[in-house]
């Protein structure tokens, strides 16, 4: 046994009904290194992490932690052994205060009584180190996702761990917060703590990691020194496809003049939206670029009639409208794939078929009675067209991978035959292969004359897919990028404000 390694997992296998999630995988992390685990969705990353952190038990294979056999049976064992974990979905408790979320289970106590003063002080200090200054006595739920994520990170580093596991910690953070997080990771590393990091963002992986382990379809592809790999090589190892075909642009964007479909002007809502203008042409893909909190999601919700706005106008086909609820927007041909697919999108216990058809049951009914055969036909058609990977249309939605759930939601809206599809972070947490397919579908929709409003925190994705990009900051337009102006650098420069805000004339 090599004592260079903090954790060694050997010949790990795990089966679930119908799937081999992991097949004889070896995985090891050196002491004090930043190790990245990569692979497409369904590669087995989450399963491996869950075995490591005691949530699943492997069917075969063994683990050693610091050279000793390691057989955790629950999260507490793992925490006590010196492994702290930040899960992909924020697993904190919104009703409790920020401080409690950091220290619950390890409160500072005098004779069994919690000392709130010290608990609050320590929490403030800890968050201060992460560059966050908030009221730690307030309920966690009163803060946004990014802050909640930072609280999860604060909790993980406050447990004096030998290994910190971070399952996609950056998916809800903006650039600055990612900087801070990377600062923390470097600090952990310099004090000899190993970090296992999972991310789909290649830039981050190359910036922060020492070594990379790649999984594919439940099997180990290999273990590499980060500096020995190029981006292209890494991608092709993950997807087993030719790297060049993955990163190329998604085809020529068309710059032809378009008939206008939707125009929102001067949309103002509290302090979040301050007179935002966005126009969308027929069959046009318009990107909304901005950082978290810039008003991009808020605008999408207003446009879809979910939230109210104070002033401004929305016109559809030149006619003024005021949506009071999503139903009104749907009637005007709008569809909305929300950012939060877990809570606002999928219905986990229903089948793929029902999830696809739930918004268009009228289409498959006659005299109010739903036709099963018609449903099957429509569901199969979309499963096929969107290449949704599922054992069958009756599979429960929750058993699908994130990418395939997203495709099913898209199918749901396509069923309604929309004229505008609003997509908020459609590829978040999705592997590169599925991402590419969803991007293809966006293009396909545009060619079919459907307008798309695309929101993404990955500017690269906007650049690849949009005909036009509205850059926004603090709820106001900064700049409109068209055609050759569209580039990641252009977006960043516009947000940074080194370009003057758009002329109001």
């Amino acid at each position, binding site marked *: 046994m090599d004592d260079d390694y903090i954790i060694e997992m050997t010949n790990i296998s795990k089966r679930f009904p119908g799937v081999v999630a992991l097949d004889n995988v070896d995985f090891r992390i050196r002491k004090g290194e930043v190790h990245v685990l990569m692979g497409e969705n369904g590669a087995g990353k989450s399963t491996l992490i869950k075995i490591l952190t005691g949530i699943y038990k492997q069917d075969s294979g063994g683990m050693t932690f610091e050279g000793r056999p390691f057989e955790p049976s629950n*999260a*507490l064992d793992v925490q006590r052994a010196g492994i702290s974990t930040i899960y992909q979905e924020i697993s904190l*408790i919104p009703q*409790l205060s920020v401080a409690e979320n950091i220290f*619950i*289970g390890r409160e500072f106590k005098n004779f069994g009584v919690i000392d709130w003063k010290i608990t609050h002080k320590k929490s403030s200090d800890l968050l201060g180190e992460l560059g966050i200054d908030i009221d730690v006595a307030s309920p966690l739920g009163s803060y*946004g996702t990014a802050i909640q994520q930072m609280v999860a990170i604060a909790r993980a580093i406050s447990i004096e761990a030998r290994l910190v596991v971070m399952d996609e910690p950056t998916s809800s953070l903006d650039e600055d917060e990612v900087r801070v997080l990377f600062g923390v990771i470097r600090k952990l590393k310099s004090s000899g703590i190993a970090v296992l990091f999972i991310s789909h963002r290649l830039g981050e992986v190359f910036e922060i990691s020492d070594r990379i382990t790649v999984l594919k379809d439940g099997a180990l592809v290999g273990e590499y020194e980060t500096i020995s790999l190029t981006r292209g090589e890494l991608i092709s190892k993950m997807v087993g496809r030719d790297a060049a075909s993955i990163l190329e642009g998604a085809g020529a964007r068309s710059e032809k003049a378009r008939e206008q479909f939707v125009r929102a002007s001067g949309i103002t809502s509290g302090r979040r939206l301050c007179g935002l203008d966005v126009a969308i042409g027929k069959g046009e893909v318009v990107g909304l670029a901005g950082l978290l909190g810039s008003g991009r999601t808020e605008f999408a919700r207003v446009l879809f009639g979910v939230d109210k706005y104070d002033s401004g106008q929305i016109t559809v086909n030149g006619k003024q409208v005021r949506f009071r609820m999503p139903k009104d927007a749907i009637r005007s041909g709008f569809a909305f794939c929300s950012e939060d697919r877990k809570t606002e999108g999928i219905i986990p216990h229903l089948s793929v078929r029902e999830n696809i058809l739930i918004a268009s049951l009228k289409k498959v009914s006659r005299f109010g009675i739903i036709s099963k055969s018609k449903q099957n036909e429509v569901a199969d058609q979309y499963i096929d067209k969107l290449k949704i990977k599922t054992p069958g249309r009756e599979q429960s939605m929750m058993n699908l991978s994130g990418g395939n759930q997203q495709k099913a939601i898209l199918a749901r809206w396509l069923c309604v035959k929309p004229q505008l599809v609003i997509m908020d972070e459609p590829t978040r947490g999705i592997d590169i292969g599925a991402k590419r397919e969803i991007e293809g579908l966006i293009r396909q929709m545009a060619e079919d004359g459907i307008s798309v409003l695309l929101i993404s925190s990955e500017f690269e994705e906007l650049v690849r897919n949009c005909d036009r990009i509205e850059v926004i900051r603090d709820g106001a337009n900064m700049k409109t990028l068209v055609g050759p102006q569209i580039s990641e650098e252009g977006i960043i420069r516009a947000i940074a404000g080194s370009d003057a805000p758009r002329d109001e004339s």
Partner: protein
Amino acid sequence: MENGAGYGTVKRIIAGNGAFIALLVMLAIASAVYREFFTYSNMSNVLRQMSMVGLISVGMTLVILTAGIDLSVGATVAISAIIAAKLSSHGLIAPIVVPLLAGIAIGCANGLIVNNLKIVPFIATLAVQMAVRGVAYLLTDMRSIAVDRSAKTFIAIGRGYWLGVPIPVIVFLAVAAVVAFVCAKTSFGRSVYAIGGNEDAARMMGLRVKRDKLLCYAITGFLSAMAGVILCARLGAGQPVSGEGWEMDSIASVAIGGTLLAGGVGGIEKTICGVLIIGFIKNIINLQGDVNSYWQKIIMGIILLLVIIVQNKTFKKGTV
């Protein structure tokens, strides 16, 4: 999101103490309208009556905070009252301790079924309720069991006073104070809130979810048995139909107080307000005299509905 201060905060404070404010308003109006309302005899009477459902509601609050429910409490009252009555001739310890142990056992059964058989609390405790009630019928053959005449000290638990305050009221307030402290200041208490807020997250944080849930049901069983013992001492008998519908009264007290049935938000102090509101409403209807007492249920139904509506409005935006 980041700062929903101002108007929202004010609204939340009012909503957070809605039951307390409602209680004060009710007390003010009642004492103005009914001369006999704020008298010693009326107050000690009302408080003694509500102390038993009050004890149960304290436990129920814990269970509901974990996003559970316990429908077996009324049956536990009956069985513990019967056991207490049957043992009343065997000194003072047996008729108190044995029913309490029985209550803990019933609570543990609830907790184990919920935890280990993964049956939703509603069904698990409904089944236990039916079984326990059945045992109560079997033990008594549907007859009332009288408390032994010589058991004067035992009877005092239900009928006695200490410094002019009915003993059941003292027991209720003491229990409520202890549990309120436990909720706010101990790891177990905070874990109860965490479990109700997000059970998966609580588990992943390394909290002992199963143990703490079991403890909540056990405490509820224990407090229900305590209510049963008091009831037995007060009536001088253990009756197989005792405590029927008390589960609904205690759930209503918890809900009217402002603890969310979805779990994670609420507290003992809120429940005390809820218990008092329900108790005083019953009392006011009695004092009014000319109102048919069946109105009680209707009025309580309306209040419950109003509370839930207000909760929905304030919490929809407050906690995400």
